[in-house]
């Protein structure tokens, strides 16, 4: 499995297929063999999460994981606390997600579900990562809210970062990416360009029929 610079890739699969496990392993939250994961030509599998983050990989965790006792803006500042150079800072984030700017002083728990997801993505961007990993952005959100968030993805990608989207909502994900991996029981069951995949081949890989 690979992700090229500036590319958007989707990882899909049924519940329990191992999608979150894959992202956590890349981010260093779960241990893996040092050479199992390489980033920019270097093995990073053995690094702890904070060191992986310092190299420019940000994970937007499943369920958003905002810091409840911090305000919206403080959440963003924690995201940016590594001071990596790049396009994202508070003002460019507030341009992308104006609602966060309006509510920057609120406790993060006071945001709606969609706004919380925006804040989680924004917090990931504040690190100015080279690779952004998003775990189930659409989880528990109304379709209209999901669409709203997905309309920001092109702007994010235009800044030149790579993106990995883990999704259950296959249709939504396929529209946003160039390539797709389908996981099944921890293994890649299908890989290909997003436009080449048909509903049938995906269903086959999804359920292993």
């Amino acid at each position: 499995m690979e992700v090229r610079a500036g590319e958007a890739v989707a990882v899909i699969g049924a519940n329990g297929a191992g999608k979150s496990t894959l992202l956590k392993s890349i981010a260093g939250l779960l241990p893996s063999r040092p050479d199992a994961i390489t980033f920019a030509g270097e093995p990073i599998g053995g690094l702890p999460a904070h060191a992986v983050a310092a190299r420019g990989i940000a994970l937007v965790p499943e369920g958003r994981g905002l810091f409840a006792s911090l305000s919206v803006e403080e959440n963003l500042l924690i995201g940016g606390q590594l001071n990596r150079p790049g396009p994202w800072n508070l003002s460019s984030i507030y341009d992308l997600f104006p609602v966060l700017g309006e509510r920057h002083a609120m406790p993060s728990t006071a945001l709606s579900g969609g706004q919380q997801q925006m804040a989680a993505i924004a917090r990931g961007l504040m690190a100015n990562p080279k690779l952004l990993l998003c775990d189930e952005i659409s989880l528990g959100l109304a379709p209209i809210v999901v669409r709203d968030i997905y309309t920001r993805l092109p702007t994010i990608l235009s800044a030149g970062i790579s993106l990995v989207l883990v999704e259950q909502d296959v249709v939504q994900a396929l529209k946003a990416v160039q390539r797709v991996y389908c996981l099944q029981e921890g293994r890649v069951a299908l890989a290909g360009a997003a436009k080449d995949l048909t509903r049938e081949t995906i269903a086959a890989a999804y359920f292993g029929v």
Partner: protein
Amino acid sequence: MTDWINVILQGVLVGGLYAMFAAGLSLIFGVMRLVNIAHGDLIVLAAYLALVATQTLGIGPLVSLLIVVPLMAAVGYALQRLILNRTLGEDLLPPLLVTFGLSVIIQNGLLALFTADDRKLQAGAIEVATVRLFEGVYVGLLPLLQFAVAVAVIAALQFVFYRTALGRAFRATADSPEVARLMGLDNRHVFALAMALSLAVVAIAGVFLAIRADFDPSIGPARLIFGFEAVIIGGLGSLWGTFAGGLVLGVAQAIGAHINPGWQILAGHIAFLVILAVRPEGLFAKGRA
């Protein structure tokens, strides 16, 4: 009447010291859910460090803070990195047992080095200087200074916790260590910084304790208990609440001592237990803990 005003005033001033005992305790509990049983013994350790510094360098106790505070902070950082980080987790027994072990080690180590004799730091003329507040009510300059330092320490901690990047890192790590790691925060380092800050406060408290009263290697556990009582009386999650808790404890002890000298500490414990029975979330809690 002035009699009682004096009693309460003395209680409030001692309460400032208790608030300092409590602040370090509540800081690390807030950040990493660790109750440090050796907290009181570390206060006594700081007192002995100040004793050695004043005796060998011929400096005053207040100047010795310049040495003792960074030294204790370094001890805190190392202690957390080398030992305490390995005890953190769901189970509360490992940190409890390990800090209990540290407590016994510090007590017996100090006993071996310094014997059980009473010691005291001499601060010179400032110890006897008094200030007249109004007719019949005098307070010592030293207790007043110590109280002012306690207020400053709490205010500084409040500032660090809510207004700085370090405080943000503390709160984020307390909320979710795992997500904080994703933001590049090494929680082992963050926890060690919290312990360093806690022991810096411990150092200040230890030096003032040593100027105020006699100390020996065995008095640590009682200081831990005073600090703990102040935290609970004040209510979790609020530094100014902790400060107020220290004052309540100090006043309760002063009133007890005024009625019967043998009742000083007992009165503090009783006040604590009564508050626990009628208002277990503390007097000044932000919300239920």
